[in-house]
């Protein structure tokens, strides 16, 4: 059989694909536990960033234990669910999919209670769509469950220099001090406004120029996710 014959070419490529596939699977399976641990630590760091605690990779676990005093799981009526699932382990993507398949009553919402400098802060994980892929983040509310204490956003593949700017401190700092309920107590969320807004506007922040889809994604993400927690806020305030 000549090595350039069709048969040899076919056999060679099939064999190569199988060998490479086995190599990759073995690597992926062996390294999976280490990667999973890194992702957990990264999640802890992101949660801590939303309350302005800069955790290094090494001490993120300790700081998380220290500051996050309570993890709560809520259902869509705002009641605490006592179950085996911890708030930290809830996969937001799966919970969002439940809403799509009309299983809203089975949705679970994680909430983290943080104690920092004597204040209680409520940290809510959010997740939505950017231009190229998912965007996510954590929004921390002060004890009044209205004023934003801080946010941290992340993204998978937004355009560097445009959509990716949501990850910068400059954009995230704009959220501090904004309010999610208006004076009459109606839920308005915080909107990312294209074309800019007055810094004194308590319900809006400046969009990143040129990143319309990502900015709208952030607005939608905050409005929808925070909306899920309104029943809980109302109960807690009474």
């Amino acid at each position: 059989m000549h090595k350039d014959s069709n048969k040899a070419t076919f056999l060679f490529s099939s064999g190569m694909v199988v060998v490479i596939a086995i190599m990759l699977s073995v690597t992926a399976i062996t390294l999976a536990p280490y990667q999973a641990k890194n992702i957990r630590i990264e999640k802890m760091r992101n949660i801590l960033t939303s309350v302005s605690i800069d955790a290094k990779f090494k001490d993120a676990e300790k700081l998380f234990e220290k500051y996050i005093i309570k993890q709560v799981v809520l259902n869509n009526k705002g009641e605490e669910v006592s179950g085996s699932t911890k708030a930290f382990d809830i996969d937001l993507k799966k919970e969002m999919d439940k809403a799509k398949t009309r299983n809203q009553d089975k949705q679970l919402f994680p909430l983290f209670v943080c104690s920092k400098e004597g204040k209680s802060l409520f940290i809510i994980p959010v997740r939505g769509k950017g231009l190229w892929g998912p965007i996510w983040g954590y929004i921390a509310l002060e004890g009044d469950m209205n004023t934003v204490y801080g946010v941290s956003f992340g993204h998978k593949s937004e355009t560097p220099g445009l959509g990716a700017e949501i990850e910068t401190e400059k954009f995230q700092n704009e959220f501090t001090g904004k309010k999610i309920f208006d004076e009459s107590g109606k839920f308005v969320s915080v909107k990312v406004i294209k074309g800019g807004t007055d810094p004194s506007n308590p319900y809006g922040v400046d969009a990143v120029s040129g990143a319309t889809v990502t900015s709208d994604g952030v607005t939608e993400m905050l409005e929808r996710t925070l909306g899920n927690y309104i029943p809980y806020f109302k109960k807690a305030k009474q």
Partner: protein
Amino acid sequence: MNYKSEVMSTGTVTTPVKTKAPGEGLFSAKNRKLIYDPLNDNNPITVQVLGICSALAVTVKMKPSIVMAISVVVVCAFSNLIISIIRNSIPNRIRIIVQLTVVAGMVIIVDQFLKAFVFDVSKQLSVFVGLIITNCIIMGRLEAYAMSNKPWPSFLDGIGNGLGYGLILIIVSIVRELFGSGELMGTRIIPESVYKMGYFNNSLVIMPPMALIVVGVIIWIQRSRNRKLIESK
């Protein structure tokens, strides 16, 4: 399948170069040359001007540059080795696909290791580890060297070219981190008192164009000192 004895068919772009005569030592003068030649006389970045794109992107800080350099050395050396081992059985018509698959496999493995053991650096390098696949240096070495040479010299050639690339990367990153952030490997080098006297970090150095200028300066210095690189008119 025994086609090892068969002569390579037509269509190969490369001219076979014989490097290792029988009985030659593992680190003979010829083999040593494979390592140090790409560091200077035949540097992939400054002489062949390949792999510039990633050299601009990852050189803002020293730590990601070092990790990137190591990754490229590993990918380049092992893909050279693998391709060289199977070079006589690769069907000529699909050789580029075969090379690409091997390189892609290596890159994914390296990426998985980075994610498992140096997660923060892997996040900074993000897409650029994956883009090692498209780094012209690696495919270039496979086509020009590994396809027509024995495994051991090919392996050394891979290490040499990876190091040549890494060397430039690290030099550029030292300049950029020192003048752009006043730090090296994340440790402050330029003391606080200098800043108080009115010194500023040069933010232009952090931008990608400055990397190109630094590479240009390196090429200039190298060409003015290395007689072999001066073209005759």
